[in-house]
């Protein structure tokens, strides 16, 4: 009978070592699952795509930063970003992201950490935290999370050894997917509560297909540090759309920093891949992150999930063509057409922002009233968050093409309205 035969065949792997909830080192897991482990190690690869992927820039290692390779600086590629983030750590060092293998070192050595005081909270998404968290929390994950959030980053950093590892996504005994990140556990619960589903427990209630995206949503999301405890929080109580998140911050009276040149109470958006994907037709169709970024791949007699997590455009055959029977070149062209439109509109929005910042600076010098300035700052705050929501989203619009364009359209309107607020029509007779 089919069912039974499945059971027998279920696990074609040999259990060489016994894994438990304290086994952090991926090399040990790799003894049982060498194919996944080998692929996982390949996240060191660095290869560009037209708009994404990752790229290696050689550098001479120093005391402070021993890295011999880094990703290119976005600030040098587009200096307008320095103006957008004026007065905030991101204006000092912001680079392209690269493979999972680098997450821990890239965080450790970024000038955002070296030149600014950062909380232990940061580690949540840049290391294998499950074991240290539970240890520090005496068996309680959340307690450990809270313990590290309040420490200075460098002090917390000492207890973490690996970038993301198997145990961050898998149950060591069943190998089932498992969410281990307090930020997501609490964030998704707040989201579901807002939708009328109380006490949502993702590990108990999510379907397997949902888990194929939720494990990524543990980190590829917008976040902020809440209150004195610097508690990592995903601002989802009102929903996942950019407007709902901006409203959430307004009501919480939250700001990330005060813009150095305009005095606006500014917000920073970070990598909302999960939120944007949720607005797109792929997620509506039940297509998970893993479907495209970890597609099944044939290895010998077996089909396994490609643990070399990377841009699907480097792997169109497996990532797209099982579902889309179009030639590889055509699929690439479709993705790039979407990205090209997004980037063009994003540049238009950045130009509008530059003009608003210049106007605000000038109006400030010219002694405009607080009321007028604050109105314009309000437009800057919101518009900047919208642009950043697309700018920092790493698919250049692919995850939700129309939504990305609509967000940028709204942003342009906010920036220009800010300028208009600062520029009254001249009274009749003024020579122009």
């Amino acid at each position, binding site marked *: 009978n089919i069912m039974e035969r499945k059971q027998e*065949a279920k696990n074609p792997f040999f259990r060489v070592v016994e894994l438990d909830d304290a086994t952090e080192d991926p090399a040990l897991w790799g003894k049982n699952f060498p194919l996944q482990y080998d692929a996982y190690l390949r996240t060191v690869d660095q290869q560009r795509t037209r708009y994404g992927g990752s790229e290696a820039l050689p550098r001479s290692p120093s005391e402070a930063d021993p890295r011999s390779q880094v990703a290119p600086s976005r600030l040098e590629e587009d200096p307008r970003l320095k103006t957008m983030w004026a007065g905030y750590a991101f204006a000092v060092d912001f680079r392209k992201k690269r493979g999972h293998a680098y997450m821990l070192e890239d965080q450790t050595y970024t000038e955002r950490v070296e030149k600014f005081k950062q909380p232990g909270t940061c580690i949540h998404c840049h290391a294998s935290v499950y074991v240290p968290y539970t240890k520090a929390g005496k068996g309680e994950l959340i307690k450990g999370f809270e313990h590290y959030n309040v420490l200075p980053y460098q002090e917390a950093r000492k207890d973490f050894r690996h970038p993301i590892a198997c145990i961050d996504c898998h149950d060591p005994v069943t190998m089932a997917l498992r969410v281990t990140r307090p930020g997501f556990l609490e964030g998704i619960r707040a989201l579901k509560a807002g939708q009328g589903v109380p006490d949502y427990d993702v590990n108990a209630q999510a379907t397997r297909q949902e888990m194929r995206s939720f494990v990524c949503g543990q980190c590829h999301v917008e976040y902020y540090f809440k209150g004195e405890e610097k508690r990592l929080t995903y601002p989802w109580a009102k929903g996942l759309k950019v407007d709902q998140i901006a409203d959430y911050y307004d009501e919480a009276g939250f700001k990330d920093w005060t813009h150095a040149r305009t005095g606006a109470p500014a917000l920073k958006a970070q990598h909302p891949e999960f939120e944007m994907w949720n607005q797109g037709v792929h997620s509506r169709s039940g297509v998970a992150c893993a479907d495209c970024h970890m597609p099944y791949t044939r290895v010998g007699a077996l089909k396994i999930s490609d643990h070399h997590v990377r841009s699907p455009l480097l792997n169109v055959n497996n990532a797209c063509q099982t579902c889309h029977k179009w030639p590889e070149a055509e699929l690439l062209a479709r993705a790039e057409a979407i990205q090209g439109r997004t980037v063009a509109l994003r540049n238009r929005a950045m130009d509008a922002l530059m003009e608003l910042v210049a106007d605000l600076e000038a109006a400030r010098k010219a002694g405009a009233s607080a009321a007028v300035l604050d109105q314009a700052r309000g437009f800057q705050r919101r518009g900047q968050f919208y642009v950043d929501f697309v700018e920092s989203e790493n698919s250049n619009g692919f995850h939700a093409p129309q939504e990305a364009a609509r967000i940028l359209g709204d942003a342009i309107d906010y920036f220009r309205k800010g300028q208009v607020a600062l520029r009254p029509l001249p009274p009749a007779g003024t020579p122009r």
Partner: protein
Amino acid sequence: MSSHGLGIGHAAGLLAVLLLGAALGLGGYTFAYAKGWSYLTNDAAACANCHVMRDQHDGWTKSSHRAVAVCNDCHTPHDPVGKYYTKASNGFWHSYYFTTGTFPEPIRATRRSRAIAEANCRRCHEPVVAAMGTPAHAGSREISCVRCHGSVGHLELGATNVAGEEGHD
């Protein structure tokens, strides 16, 4: 509406279907006329006897499986009784719908027949897919093959041939 999903035991089911057909006074007739018995064979063309099956037949002839699997390899369960029950069931209901012309179009696989097809995917591909995914997660179904391989049985022109979750019973 419930067509193929008759919740009757196998052997009894086959009998019930034929009796029911006779009772309605058309089963026997349409069945014979529409070569009802002939497609109890594994001849794909037999299914295409019905023009309403032609699209799927054409799709099958373009699919990667045309040479390796016929209709029944995917659409009938592979335990002996179930096979003939399902066929008689299909046969009777297809004849019934076909005659009365009262069926929803475009024709869609029922939950039951999609489940049968999925089971058949695994039957033939056990070795390849054995490693796929981890033991089912609390509250989840096994992962669906058709979600990614929707066109292996029927290569359709146009859209991504991805199965929706739904399907009439």
